[in-house]
């Protein structure tokens, strides 16, 4: 899957630059007024800069003026006060500009991260099953980071650069029109070189961000499975693989950053070319003028040339600064594309608007067919009926499609053919959230959150009181071990609950479901790591848990499902037997063989 994404992203890249910039800028929309204010500040500080330098001229002129020393000093004082106030205005403007922009950019980042996260909540389970956690993470960290760097400073600097560029250009034309032509000729060449470098580095920066994503994904995967690496003494191989990825990241980074960095020296050189041409052509013009060969054009003297040449030197500074920003802008655009790529993914479908209220829990699975990939069918023509309050067990060898059925009831995945109804309503017509609120699921893979034990159980029902949480823990038999934890219910669990045993984590998961009041319950190997005595102890609790709830149980410990109202035996995605425990035993079919250990399911 990841390679496919990459391809898609790559082919989309070049033509979408404008759209990406536009979309990125839309995050600044709310703060238009503030940005306007910041730009005014930029204008003020640029102008005070010019004015400050300009003030030197009258000051110097005054010093050599033909008046008394005292008068010259007093004029100097007046001039310096003027200069000081211009400077003060400039400093204040610079400060406010920075202060405003920092708030604007941080708010934009906040919104961007928030939007990305909200989008993540909206994406179907399939997205998470097919994309690398590390690569998704990289979009939050590396990619958003580069955007942040750009918003922080680049915007203002670009504006500042353009202001000084225009200012200088105006001054040049004002000084000598003909000599300005030289700059006008050189400028498009500079622009051409600039855009060529930009578009070439653009692709390279996309590669850099993609490589960064890959390295991130690899690190994430290996660090998550670090204990397996250690058990297999696989450290050296892992390091080798990492080195390969790290090297290709290194190469991509060198290529991208060098391409971006070429802008500086190239632009600098071009502005020196401009400077040289201006000086040379200017000198020739002056000489020609002196020799009287310029006719009426010769308005250029040495003084004018000196001033002009200084302008053309000044001209290079903002261009250089603009070029410096390029690396940042390129990284940011590449990052933004990866962020928007996630935002543009198809969200989880939800066309239903029926809100379930006080349902009985009558579940009908009617002739469904499904495969995760179109070319591989997992379930074929499966039908299951569960009357309210019934306990339905799904039995079958690993990979037979038991979990898949629960994935479909909860609409983690959408059915290809057939339909599922709850109280006669097609689950597609039910509001997705409402559907899931009415189904409590306990999964085999235990998932806990960083936080206290109390918070983790309360996840099942947020408004539950402490006493209700405790009761749920008693029901699932988790209460006794929780009491033995250092801080009881207030013990903080690590992200994956690594300070608890697997069985204990499963008990917490059951407690979570016990707290929920959903009328439909799905237990997918919910007690696989719980020892049998504890399981027996919680059986009573489980009975209360399942009372008045339509329950689907997946278990291979057949003992745990005997008292089910109906047992479905699944093989290769097809139900091959159905009935109660006694009926199935009497049938002497697969279930009988399985139960008595006569035959294996595979």
């Amino acid at each position, binding site marked *: 899957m990841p390679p496919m994404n990459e391809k898609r992203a790559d082919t989309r890249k070049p033509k979408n630059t404008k759209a990406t910039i536009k979309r990125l800028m839309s995050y600044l929309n709310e703060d238009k007024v503030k940005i306007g204010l910041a730009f005014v500040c930029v204008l003020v500080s640029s102008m005070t800069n010019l004015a400050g330098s300009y003030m030197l001229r009258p000051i*110097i002129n005054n010093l050599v003026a033909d008046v008394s020393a005292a008068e010259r000093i007093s004029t100097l004082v007046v001039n310096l006060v003027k200069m000081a106030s211009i400077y003060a205005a400039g400093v204040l403007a610079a400060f406010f500009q*920075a202060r405003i922009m920092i708030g604007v950019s941080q708010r934009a980042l906040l919104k961007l*991260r928030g939007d990305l996260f909200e989008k993540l909540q909206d994406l179907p389970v399939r997205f998470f099953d097919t994309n690398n956690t590390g690569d998704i993470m990289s979009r939050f960290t590396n990619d958003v980071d580069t955007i942040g760097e750009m918003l922080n400073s680049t915007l203002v600097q670009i504006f500042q650069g353009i202001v000084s560029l225009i200012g200088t250009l105006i001054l040049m034309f004002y000084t000598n029109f003909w000599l300005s032509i030289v700059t006008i000729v050189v400028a498009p060449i500079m622009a051409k070189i600039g855009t060529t470098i930009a578009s070439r580095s653009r692709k390279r920066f996309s590669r850099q961000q993609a490589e960064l994503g890959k390295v991130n994904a690899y690190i994430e995967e290996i660090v998550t*499975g670090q204990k397996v690496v250690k058990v297999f003494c696989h450290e050296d191989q892992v390091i080798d693989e990492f080195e390969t990825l790290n090297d290709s990241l290194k190469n991509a980074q060198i290529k991208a950053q060098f391409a971006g960095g070429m802008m500086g020296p190239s632009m600098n050189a071009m502005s020196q070319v401009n400077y040289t041409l201006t000086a040379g052509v200017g000198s020739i013009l002056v*000489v020609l003028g002196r020799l009287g060969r310029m006719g009426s054009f010769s308005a250029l003297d040495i003084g004018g040339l000196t001033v002009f040449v200084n302008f053309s030197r000044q001209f290079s500074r903002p261009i250089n600064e603009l070029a410096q920003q390029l690396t940042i802008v390129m990284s940011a655009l590449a990052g933004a594309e990866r962020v928007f790529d996630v935002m543009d993914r198809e969200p989880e479908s939800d066309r239903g608007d029926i809100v379930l209220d006080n349902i009985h829990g009558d579940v009908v699975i009617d002739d469904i067919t499904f495969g995760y990939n179109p070319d591989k069918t997992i379930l074929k023509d499966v039908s299951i009926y569960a009357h309210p309050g019934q306990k339905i067990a799904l039995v079958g060898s*690993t990979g037979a499609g038991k979990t898949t059925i629960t994935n479909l009831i909860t609409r983690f995945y959408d059915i290809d053919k057939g339909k599922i109804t709850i109280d006669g309503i097609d689950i597609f017509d039910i509001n997705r959230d409402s559907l899931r609120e009415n189904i409590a699921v306990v999964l085999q893979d235990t998932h806990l959150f960083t936080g206290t034990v109390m918070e983790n159980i309360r996840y099942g029902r947020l408004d539950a009181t402490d006493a209700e949480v405790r009761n749920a823990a008693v029901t699932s038999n988790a209460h006794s071990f929780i009491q033995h934890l250092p801080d009881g219910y207030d013990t903080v669990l690590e992200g994956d609950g690594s300070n608890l045993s697997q069985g204990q984590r499963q008990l917490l998961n059951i407690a979570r479901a016990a707290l*929920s009041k959903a009328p439909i319950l799905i237990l997918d190997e919910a007690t696989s790591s719980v020892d049998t005595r504890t399981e027996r102890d919680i059986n009573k609790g489980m009975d209360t848990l399942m009372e008045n709830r339509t329950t689907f149980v997946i278990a291979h410990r057949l003992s745990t499902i005997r008292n089910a109202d109906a047992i479905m035996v699944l093989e290769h995605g097809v139900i091959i037997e159905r009935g109660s425990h006694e009926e199935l035993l009497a049938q002497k079919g697969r279930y009988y063989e399985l139960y008595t250990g006569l035959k294996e399911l*595979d």
Partner: protein
Amino acid sequence: MRQYWKYIRPHLLYFIFGPLLMLSEVAGEIVLPTIMATMIDVGIANNNIPYVISRMAIMFGCICVMIIGGLGGHYLSVTASVAFSADIRKDVFKKVQSFSFKNIDKFSTGSLVTRLTNDITQIQNITRMFLIMAMRSPGMLIGGIIMALRLNRSLAAILIIVIPLLGLTIGLLMYNAYPRFNVVQKKLDGLNSGIQENITNVRVIKSFVREKFEIDKFRRANTDLKDSTLNAMKIVICTMPVMTLAMNITMIMTVWNGGNLVVAGGMDVGNLTAFTTYIVQILMSLMMVSMLFLQSSRAAASSKRIKEVLNTVVDLTDDNSSKKDLTVERGEVEFRNVCFKYYESRKTNILDNINFKINPGETVGIIGATGSGKTSLVQLIPRLYDVTQGEVLVDGVNVKDYSIRHLRDGVGMVLQKNVLFSGTIEDNLRWGDENATREEIEEAADNAQADDFVKSFTDGYNTELGQGGVNVSGGQKQRLCIARALLKKPKILILDDSTSAVDTATEAKIRHAFATTLKDTTKIIIAQRISSIMDADKILVLSEGKVTGFGTHDELIKTNDEYRDIYYSQVDEEVSA
């Protein structure tokens, strides 16, 4: 800084010549105006157009040198900073690979990932900036100071007051910014861990319809991060105005003092004008240098976090192992007075005074309540953790005396919480033995009852597994993990509840395969179902960290209350059915 020297040394030439080549740009910028001056002074004065053109040619020559130097300098600087940080990343990763289980428990996955990517990127950026500006700014600075001193020493005295004052202010700002950036990185860690948790727990979130709850939680963390970033940036943004202010004050003082000098006749105007130019140059380059330092306060926060990983003491090594050449030959396991707890600070032991011995080739089942210490116990055999007291012996030798590689090569373990990696099924199985032939792989898979279902996939052993092996079911995943361990051909094989998702019938097959093909391998099996271990040579009953029974099924049924209780908890149900 000293710690980074070893990463700089291999790229030393890049580190030196990158900035040096950048000097050509600085030199060019100084030389070009002087050539231009002769063009005007000589060329125009003599109305000599060929001379003007020849000067232009020289200038173009200079520009060529500048562009070559500039590009070369950039290339070398970029290469130096990227290679430097790639080496650091590699070493941090290597370090993580050398971590013990205890070390791994200490860092969260999210935080390790941020350190390896984000933090190293910060270091890389600052290094690149530093290299590119290293010669430029100081060159301009020193040049400016020399010129200013030559022009007028008394005026230059202003700099002696301003520069230290400026340095102090910048230092103060940095001093305040650094801890704030530390907070930022910590908040970033928290946010990232939250996102990561969110991604792995997506099914729970969706099934409980907690999207809004999670979004609210994220919003708080996100706002927190924004606020702490603002808090840090607030200081950073003060630098620019402070620097400008300093520059302005210097300028006014210079003009005031200089102006008085001029009026008194102690200095001519031309020199004053030149002097102000140098002042601007000095302060500008000073500004660049301090900006760089300020930027580095964020990098310093990142650097600290990287060093935290690099300087972590790996608390479980084989450096002091006395019998490094020894390999596990027979597969005998003995526990002598073993006590164990995960954290020194905990009062009670997880395992308390454990004594038992397993002979080579025996099959031993371990049974006990949830949280009784089964997993902790078996983890001590391949030395995933070190005992708190007592000793664990394999083939009569303390596990601490083996080299870790030899020990773990001899002890195959299927973890309870197991992971498959991206790549094909074959890639994953080869973790057990890189050089295994196809037959060996299929044989191991067959013994783990995985061969059939693998072959039912269109691509067979070349089927790609997604991250975490998501496209196989829980039971299939467990069987692949067993096959992977079998390929190691270990002398001791430990299964930590590794068939919990495998159906009974398949499990029986696996057991059968073990009994016939792994006769000489010592097998230690943790299980919930008595049926999984009933036929074992010995069964160890664990209760609250203590061994309460060790014997055959028949013996335990007679003598051990707890075992009987467990047995009947399972048989009872079957009977009552």
